[in-house]
Structures are given as structure tokens and as C-alpha cells.
């Protein structure tokens, strides 16, 4: 096993919230170890003054001093994890500024998180895995061309996708709603192989991602089992032809949303959220169902409506549905309601998540929801930019997996 990735922790509150052990456990699960950058009392006094952000909490001052020690190279680390209490305004300001400061002033991958006492290691795992992958597998993530015959499987919370690629081209696809995790995976793998005209034994390498990645990965003997943050980043810039330079990847998923600030295809900062379903693809599914249209028809329907005509901006799926029902009862058109639902989801993601990453153009939307053009349109309006939706965007995780899996063909990376 390789040496553990050393993750510097900058935090206020996890010990007293009972979540420090959860952080330790999440790190241990991905062969990482947390540590607290060593500074002196004088460093704290000096760093606090020179950083210029007035925080009254001493633990936040300590976090600032530790961040400076990392950026100035006085303490070495592979990655940085910033964690503060949810609902603390002072800590939120410090957390965001430190994340930005480290991202801009160093090459260290950084993720920030606001926890409650209910935060578990499971919640932190994907973030920690992404953080360590970026630190540990830079060579793997540098891959820009797919080689050989590979397959990627994305076992998502709503849908399961498979992609077969040969010599940098997509030759087979499979898509199915996730019911039984293994069963759905088998179904899409069979479809993708059939379309590609190959048998599974012909494959040179396989990658898995998504919620079911471990289970499916073990079952089908995957060479690469990787969380969706790094995989989707790679897939997005690959499909959009934006592998070099800056980009922002937005993936509004069935259960949680990802917003990733990417540099040369490698995530720099990212957020992953999904406390409430009103800001997820699930709400759009509900809307389509209530309007009596297929989810594929919701986007075009929304493009014909005006979102401003219907008040709807709840991050809670129950309240959101209530607005929807009220609007329809008051005589609003299906088009306006569809547009309002798209606007509502886009606005929640914008307000709750995009504030935590620095939006850098181009903005690339991926995942199944990126096919709902009404949603893409509303997001573009909010961000004041033209949002790119690359071809095969709904297969993003599977494409990223197939691309990265080709790094395992010669068995020289791991």
C-alpha cells in the first residue's frame, strides 16, 4: 500500500461536535491521515494580523495561521481539508476565504465542509476520496486520450450508465434506472457491449464510479473504482474539448449536486451538496410527473414558459411541490410551471453551492439533468454566461471512468 496522503486539517468545532472521529475514519478509509500544521503562538499573532481578516474566535485565528504556514511552505501537506460548524457566519467567512486563499496561492487541493453533529464519515468519504485522488493520482488524472478498449460504469442514485470506448471514441452506450444496483449495472453493461459489438472478455480495462462503485466494481472486477468528483471533472472537460485551462463543472444529480472548479482537468476546489431535494434532479422528475409529461419533455416545455410568472424557490421538495400545485390550481400554464421549476433548482444550486467555488468559464453542465434545456437556460441566466452541454453529457461518469481506466491497461498506474 502506498504512503498515506497527508491531509492538513484547518477547523473550528469538530472536536466539540463529536465529528472529529468521523473525519479520522473517512481519511483512514482512503488511506489518508489528518494532521494539524504546527505553528507557534507568534505565528498565530503574526498571521492573523497579516492575513487581515478579523475573526474573533481563536480557533479560526489558528486556522488562518495554519493556512499561511501551508501556503508559505513552512509546513508540507498533500491536501487541505477545511471544516467548520454549519450555521456559523463567522466560520463560514473564514472557511471560504481560506479555501480561496489556498486555491489561489498554492497547488494544494482543498475542500471545505460545514458539519453538524449528524455528519458521518460516510458523508465525508466521497470528498475525502476525491481529495486524496487528486493528491495521489495526478499522473492518472493527467490522461487526455482514451486508449485501447475500455468500459466505464456509473452506478448513480437514480440511473446507471455504461460506456464502451475504443481508441478515443464512444462505441457503445447503456442506460437504465437504478433499481437493483448489480442488476441495473449488468443490464447497461450488456447493452453497451452489444451496441459496441464486443464481448466483455474483449475489454482491456474497466472503471466504475457513482454511489454503487464499490459494489459494482467488486462484482465486475474493475481496475479503477473512483468517486464521481474527479471522474466527472475529467469526463466533462474531455467531452467538451476543454482539457487545458480553467473550467467549472456543474452536475445536478438525482441525490446530490456537484460544483467543481477545474484546472487542466483536475479539480481544484469542489462542493458536493444535497441536504434538500428541492435543489436536485428529483424535483424536476416530480414536476414532470405532476405535469403529466415525460422527463425528456420537461426541458422543451420549460423553454416555452416564463419562470417569473410562477413564484417557486424552495430548497425543500415538499414546499416546492406545494408551490407547483398552488400555481397549477391558480391557473398557471404547464410551460410557466416547468420553467419555474427549472429556475427554482438552478437558483438553489446557485445560492447554496456555486458561492463556494470560484466560477471560471467555460461552465460545463453534465449529468442527466443537463439534457433538460430549460434548466441549462436558467443556470446560464443566473451565471450570465453560455453554459456548455457536451455530447453524451448524461454519460459523464461512465465516459470519465472509461477514459481513466485506459491508464490501467499496462498496469503501470495505481
Amino acid at each position, binding site marked *: 500500500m502506498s504512503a498515506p496522503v497527508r491531509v492538513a486539517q484547518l477547523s*473550528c*468545532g*469538530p*472536536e*466539540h*461536535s*463529536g*465529528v*472529529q*472521529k468521523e473525519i*479520522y475514519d473517512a481519511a483512514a478509509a482512503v488511506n489518508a491521515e489528518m494532521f494539524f500544521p504546527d505553528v507557534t*503562538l507568534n505565528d*498565530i*499573532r503574526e498571521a492573523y494580523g497579516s492575513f487581515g481578516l478579523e*475573526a*474573533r*474566535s*481563536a*480557533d*479560526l485565528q*489558528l486556522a488562518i495561521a495554519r493556512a499561511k504556514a501551508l501556503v508559505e511552505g513552512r509546513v508540507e501537506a498533500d491536501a487541505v481539508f477545511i471544516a*467548520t*460548524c*454549519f*450555521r*456559523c457566519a*463567522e*466560520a463560514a467567512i473564514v472557511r471560504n476565504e481560506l479555501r480561496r486563499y489556498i486555491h489561489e496561492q498554492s497547488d494544494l487541493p482543498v475542500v471545505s465542509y460545514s*458539519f*453538524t*453533529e*449528524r455528519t458521518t464519515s460516510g458523508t465525508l468519504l466521497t470528498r475525502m476520496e476525491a481529495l486524496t485522488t487528486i493528491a495521489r493520482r495526478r499522473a492518472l488524472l493527467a490522461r487526455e486520450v482514451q486508449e485501447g478498449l475500455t468500459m466505464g460504469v456509473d452506478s448513480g442514485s437514480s440511473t446507471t450508465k455504461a460506456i464502451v470506448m475504443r481508441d478515443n471514441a464512444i462505441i457503445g452506450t447503456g442506460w437504465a434506472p437504478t433499481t437493483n444496483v448489480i442488476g441495473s449495472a449488468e443490464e447497461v453493461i450488456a447493452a453497451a457491449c452489444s451496441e459496441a459489438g464486443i464481448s466483455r472478455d474483449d475489454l482491456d480495462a474497466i472503471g466504475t464510479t457513482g454511489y454503487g462503485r464499490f459494489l459494482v466494481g467488486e462484482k465486475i472486477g474493475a481496475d479503477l473504482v473512483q468517486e464521481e468528483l474527479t471522474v466527472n471533472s475529467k469526463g466533462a472537460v474531455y467531452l467538451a474539448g476543454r482539457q487545458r485551462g480553467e473550467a467549472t463543472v456543474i452536475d445536478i444529480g438525482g441525490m446530490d449536486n456537484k460544483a467543481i472548479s477545474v484546472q487542466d482537468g483536475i479539480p481544484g476546489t469542489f462542493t458536493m451538496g444535497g441536504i434538500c431535494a428541492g435543489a436536485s434532479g428529483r424535483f424536476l422528475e416530480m414536476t414532470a410527473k405532476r405535469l403529466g409529461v415525460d422527463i425528456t419533455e420537461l426541458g422543451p416545455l420549460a423553454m416555452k414558459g416564463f419562470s417569473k410568472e410562477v413564484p417557486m424557490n424552495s430548497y425543500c421538495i415538499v414546499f416546492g411541490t406545494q408551490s407547483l400545485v398552488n400555481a397549477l390550481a391558480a391557473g398557471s400554464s404547464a410551460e410557466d410551471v416547468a420553467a419555474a421549476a427549472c429556475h427554482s433548482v438552478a437558483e438553489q444550486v446557485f445560492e447554496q453551492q456555486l458561492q463556494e467555488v470560484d466560477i471560471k468559464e467555460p461552465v460545463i453542465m453534465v449529468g442527466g439533468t443537463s439534457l433538460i434545456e430549460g434548466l441549462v437556460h436558467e443556470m446560464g441566466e443566473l451565471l450570465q454566461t453560455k453554459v456548455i452541454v457536451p455530447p453524451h453529457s448524461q454519460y459523464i461518469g461512465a465516459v470519465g471512468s472509461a477514459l481513466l481506466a485506459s491508464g490501467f491497461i499496462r498496469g503501470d498506474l495505481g
Partner: protein
Amino acid sequence: MAKVFIYPATSLILSDMVERWGHSPLGAALAIRERIQTPGLDSPPLQMTADDPKKGLKYAAVEVPSGVRGRMALFGPMIDEADAAIIVNDADLAFGCMGCARTNELVKYRIRSRGIPVLDLLYPRCDEDGVAFVAAIKAFLDGLSGGEA
């Protein structure tokens, strides 16, 4: 012997002064020791679990951050049982249990609202301050029942 809550609760100086003159200092170490010495679920480093922020609901509402409520689970019961308190008001460089400014504001308020005798001080910055600081604490502690005469 009076129970004297010290602020900052991690203070070496206050803990020493209170004990030196025959009273019992109530500080962070006592609350941490209680957790470190109680069997239960493993939750390093402080053996504080999600139950602590829940216990803290007695002192702060659910919309208050978990770190504040967790810290209040340490300090709240001690403030409730204290006979007196000594507060150093410029304790800006106290970390860990005292590292959250919002908690500290609430801790001070809870002390003051109890109506127990409170001695307010600032840290000494010179020898003469030191004399005044020590003398004030000694006089305060001597005035509490059960102390050294």
C-alpha cells in the same frame, strides 16, 4: 470551599490562584476528564459524541452551531453549579474549548445572569498590574465562604 468557575476555562493562572487559596476551580479540564474517564463509544480526541451538542440544547437552541452547543455541554453544568466566577475579559488567545467566540459570549452571559459573585479582570501587563491582579483575586476568594481566612 467554594466552587469557582474560571474564564477562560482553560486558564493556568486562574486555576492555580483558586486552588492555591483553598477553593475548587471549575474549568474545562474537569469536564474533559469526566468524558475521558467514562466508558462508552470511542470518539477521539475528547470523547465527545453527537450527544454532547444535543445536551447543549439546554443552553442554546437547535439553530446554534453544533460546536457552540457541544462546548456548552462542557461549560453549562459547571456554570450552573458554580458559587462564584472569575472572568478575565481580554482572554483573546485561548483555544480549543475556549476557541469559539460565540460560545464565550454565551458563557459570560450565563455566568452573569446567574447572579453569583463575579470578579472581572484584565490580564496583567506589568509588575504593578500583577500585584493588583493577584490582590484582587485573593480578596475576592477570601470573601467567599469556606475559603482561606
